[in-house]
């Protein structure tokens, strides 16, 4: 078990955004996280990545209790993420974005940088990552904020991968992508899992979720209402009700 949460709860004022959620993610698998808008998916991810601190419950990552650890510590432990609605560093080049993603992998190099030197190894790695997500080297020096939206999403994934994470959390990565791009994303995810990565995917694109995930967890009003293989989820009456309303109402 790479990631395990027990009774995870987060309240905002009177609203319980995440309500006693148990989550278990095996190594080298892809977990889909779906649910109607406002179901608590992003809040759950913010808890797991240390952006928010839980009110109750525990989070274990790779055998360690990380419940109260903040985002930069969790990133160093190997949790990388993208954001719903991209958050690339818009005023910096695509290459710099990826190099910043590699922050935890690089030794502090202030002193060695004082002497002008040839292109360092990390730049080579960063360029290779840009190529891998389909951005190409030609755009490496473009400002991230000037890239088309789909490219910004790809850049964000490259930045997350630069930290060589064990767990990659993708928050609606296919939003704004066309069918071809979304298929390429699915191919990328598959090859990453084959290399040993574990992925949590939040996505509205049902085909992507059903095609890419080994297991799917459904949230509704902050509670986990289903946790099963994709095929079972599609048949689950509780899930259908959450998405389509109850049979009576229909």
């Amino acid at each position, binding site marked *: 078990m790479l990631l395990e949460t027990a009774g995870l709860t987060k309240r905002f004022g009177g609203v319980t955004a995440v309500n006693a959620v148990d989550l278990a993610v095996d190594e080298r698998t892809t977990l889909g996280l779906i649910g109607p808008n406002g179901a608590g998916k992003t809040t759950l991810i913010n808890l797991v*990545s*240390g*952006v928010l601190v839980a009110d109750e419950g525990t989070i274990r990552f790779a055998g360690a209790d990380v419940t109260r650890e*903040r*985002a*930069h510590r969790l*990133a*160093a432990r190997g949790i*990388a*993420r993208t*954001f719903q609605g991209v*958050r*690339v*560093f*818009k*005023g*910096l080049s695509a290459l*710099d974005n990826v*190099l*910043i*993603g590699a*922050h*935890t992998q*690089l*030794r*502090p*190099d*202030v002193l060695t*940088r*004082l002497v*002008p030197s040839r292109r360092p190894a990390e730049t080579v790695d960063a360029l290779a990552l840009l190529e891998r997500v389909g951005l190409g080297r030609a755009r490496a020096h473009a400002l991230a904020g000037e890239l088309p939206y789909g490219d910004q999403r790809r850049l964000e994934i490259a*930045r997350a991968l630069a*930290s060589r994470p064990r767990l990659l959390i993708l928050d609606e990565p296919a939003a704004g992508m066309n069918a071809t791009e979304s298929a390429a994303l699915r191919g990328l995810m598959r090859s990453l899992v084959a290399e040993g990565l574990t992925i949590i995917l939040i996505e509205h694109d049902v085909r992507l979720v059903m095609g890419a995930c080994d297991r799917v967890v459904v949230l509704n009003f902050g509670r986990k209402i289903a946790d099963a293989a994709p095929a079972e989820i599609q048949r689950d009456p509780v899930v259908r009700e959450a998405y389509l309303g109850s049979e009576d109402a229909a």
Partner: protein
Amino acid sequence: MDVVLDFLRTYATAIAVIGISALLALSVWLTLYAGQLTLGNAAFMGVGAYVSALLGRHLDTPFPLALLAGAITAGIVAVPLGVTVFRLRGVYLAIATLAFGEVVRVILLATPITGKGQGLNGIPPKTELWQIYLSLAVVAYVLWRVQGSTVGRAWAAIREDELASASQGIDVGRFKLAAFVIGALIAGWSGGLSAHLTFSIDPSDFGFSKAVQILVFAIVGGIPNVLGPIVGAALFTALPEILRPLKDYRDIFQGLILLGVIVFLPRGLVTFLDVRRTRKLEQIGAADVA
């Protein structure tokens, strides 16, 4: 050669002041580069000035050591201050650091050893022009190179987006504090140089107007690269001299120039060349390939 020496002799003080202003502008550039607006550097300059002058006077400390002690004292003061004020952002951070400056000023005014309101007089003129410009060259070179390092990129990332920075494993609080403390060290060092240039110092030299002046140097010069603060400091220190023939209208023209730069080159004087290049490319419809 004689012409150059004559020029240097005539304008030695102005050239020295420009160098010190440039150092101060670089000291605040560092926090601005990390996206933090702080106004404490005039006070750090004051700490460096008083500590180095008092050490020289009472303990006969050699000049370089006195300078170093002044800089380090400013850096040490910056640590607890930074830990406290970096809970705040934006204007609130600026005001909190400004308040710190006032506290320093009032302490200097009330303490017998700092000469209270009269300040310290008869400080030996030990600062040489080459010392100022060597310091400036070293600081500017190091800051220029730092931009391409993991630390420089972390500061740029924090300026762009703190939350996303933390998710990349950057300890945002620590990096902000580092920028602040290194800035204080540079300001403290320039304070020592300044004190041993001007013969006398008093608390009003390091107050609100100095804090704003330092900020103006950096912002008007431009934050995108380290040349900006140096250009800004040189221009705004030399301007009163250049505009001397205008007599009473001098301040008005200085204000107009400041206004013009802010309106037409909001990212600073050093972006002037970039702007021209972009315009040209737009004219030939080639902005996309730029």
